[in-house]
């Protein structure tokens, strides 16, 4: 007769025999539920195994190893998911950054050098910053980074005498940098006034700087020594806050400017006084907002790049007070907001419909003079400016700057702005 006995987690199977008493110990890794009398041993063992407790786990047993591998795989999967999310987020942020911090170049008016705002690259840094570089095209040296303590420049202009560089930064500060003398910095406007500068332009005589932000137009006295009591406001001449202004430009006479403003629901192209900020003349009511205004160096032509993509050209001979529309066949629309006059005011550069070409218009003969295939395949063409009457710069958001020979209509040099 076989009998099952219990002791802790061990089960004893005892064979009762009158002639040869013996017992067998079997560790079943299970707590026997009780003592029972059974006729054969196999049934007794199977009955116990139906109700097992989990075996005591030991470190590095297969259960731990399996859980470890599962955890590792889950961590790697989560890393992949987070990486995709991060990549998408970074690319979206980068695109927004490109809109906020566009690449922009301006000539130093010496016929050989320029200063550029270099847009930040796509990177996984927590802070993306723009910076300024200067390039001298009379040498083969690469652009040099300007180490002014200016954070995130977003718009720049150089006075026509090349003496002062004006820099607007993302926090709203506007600096005047003395390029010729001690390279000293003057804060024309501190960040407590206004906000993100949408544009700035220096008058031809270099005495006035006009800035634009969402609160309107400001004019600043550039001449050093014109401080008043309030810090940061000492240079302010006037602030025209009556109507929203989308863009502006200053005439070469340094006395008047032109702006696109919204007045009682009407979009107006208007002339204003640089001295007082008052509107002097409504040139024309426009059907849509103007994105960019460009005035020829002689002050006779005014180009309006409409947000709709339309290009309007106005002409005012020096002897006249009135502007009239100037029609050039084919000068209709452009996808990029690009317009630049040559220093002798004979050529106007605009972009074509799809933004892949620059078109040079002969203003006297009212025809296309040249076309430039700019090849910004993986980027957006951002602008162009003349170095002199024969050479032109074009740049894209990829921070590549090209120098063009105007008559050969071919690039003569390519400069990577990124440092």
């Amino acid at each position, binding site marked *: 007769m076989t009998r099952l006995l219990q002791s802790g987690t061990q089960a004893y199977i005892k064979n009762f025999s009158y002639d040869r008493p013996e017992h067998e110990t079997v560790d079943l890794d299970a707590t026997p539920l009780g003592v029972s009398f059974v006729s054969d041993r196999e049934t007794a063992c199977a009955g116990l195994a139906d109700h097992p407790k989990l075996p005591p786990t030991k470190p590095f047993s297969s259960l731990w190893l399996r*859980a470890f591998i599962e*955890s*590792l795989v*889950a*961590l790697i999967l*989560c*890393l992949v998911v987070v990486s995709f999310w*991060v990549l998408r987020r970074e690319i979206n942020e980068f695109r927004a950054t490109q809109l906020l911090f566009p690449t922009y170049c301006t000539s130093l008016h010496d016929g050989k050098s320029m200063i550029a705002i270099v847009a930040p690259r796509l990177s996984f840094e927590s*802070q993306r910053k723009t910076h300024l570089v200067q390039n001298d095209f009379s040498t083969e040296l690469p652009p040099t980074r300007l180490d002014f303590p200016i954070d995130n420049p977003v718009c720049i202009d150089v006075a026509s005498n090349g003496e002062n560089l004006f820099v607007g930064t993302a926090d709203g500060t506007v600096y005047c940098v003395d390029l010729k003398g001690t390279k000293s910095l003057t804060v024309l406007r501190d960040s407590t006034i206004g906000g993100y500068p949408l544009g700035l332009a220096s008058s031809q005589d270099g005495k006035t700087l006009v800035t634009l932000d969402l609160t309107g137009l400001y004019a600043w006295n550039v001449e050093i020594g014109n401080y008043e009591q309030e810090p940061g406001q000492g240079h302010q001449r006037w602030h025209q806050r009556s109507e929203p202004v989308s863009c502006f430009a200053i005439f070469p006479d340094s006395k008047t400017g032109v702006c696109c403003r919204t007045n009682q629901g009407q979009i107006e192209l208007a002339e204003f006084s640089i001295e007082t900020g008052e509107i002097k003349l409504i040139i024309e009511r426009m059907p849509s907002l103007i994105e960019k205004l460009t005035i020829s160096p002689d002050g006779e032509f005014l180009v309006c790049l409409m947000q709709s993509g339309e290009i309007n050209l106005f002409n005012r001979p020096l002897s006249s007070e009135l502007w009239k529309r100037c029609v050039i066949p084919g000068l209709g629309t452009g996808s990029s907001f690009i317009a630049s006059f040559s220093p002798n005011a004979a050529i106007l550069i605009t972009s074509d419909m799809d933004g892949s070409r620059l078109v040079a218009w002969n203003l006297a003969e009212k025809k296309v003079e040249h076309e430039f295939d700019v090849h910004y395949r993986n980027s957006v063409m951002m602008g162009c400016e003349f170095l002199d009457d024969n050479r032109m710069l074009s740049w894209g958001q990829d921070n590549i700057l090209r120098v063009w020979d105007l008559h050969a209509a071919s690039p003569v040099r390519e400069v990577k702005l990124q440092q």
Partner: protein
Amino acid sequence: MSPSLIKTLNGLFTFAWIFIILVSVVDGYLVWHFRAVIAQVEQNPAGIAMLAMAGGRVWLFLSAKSFGTILASTWLMVTYRKNAIVGIAIAVPLALFQFGLLLFLRYA
């Protein structure tokens, strides 16, 4: 226990377990992303000590974070397999805590 209840518990545990790991990975990413300023803004004393030990760099902190996450999730999985109720009783509050951490990281 009915099969449907077992299935529900399995699903709940798996969700909580993966969520805990996911938040830990996101936390690790943020440490790496803000590595330039993490020494100034980190609030975990152990993290601060590890950053100091690595001379302000984040590799030691991130390695310890990853290793700790794997160890904790392994232990949690083993606990669940030994006793499902105990495993869930630990995993769900931990996942809620991680959710709070995620909100803190996002909005604080």
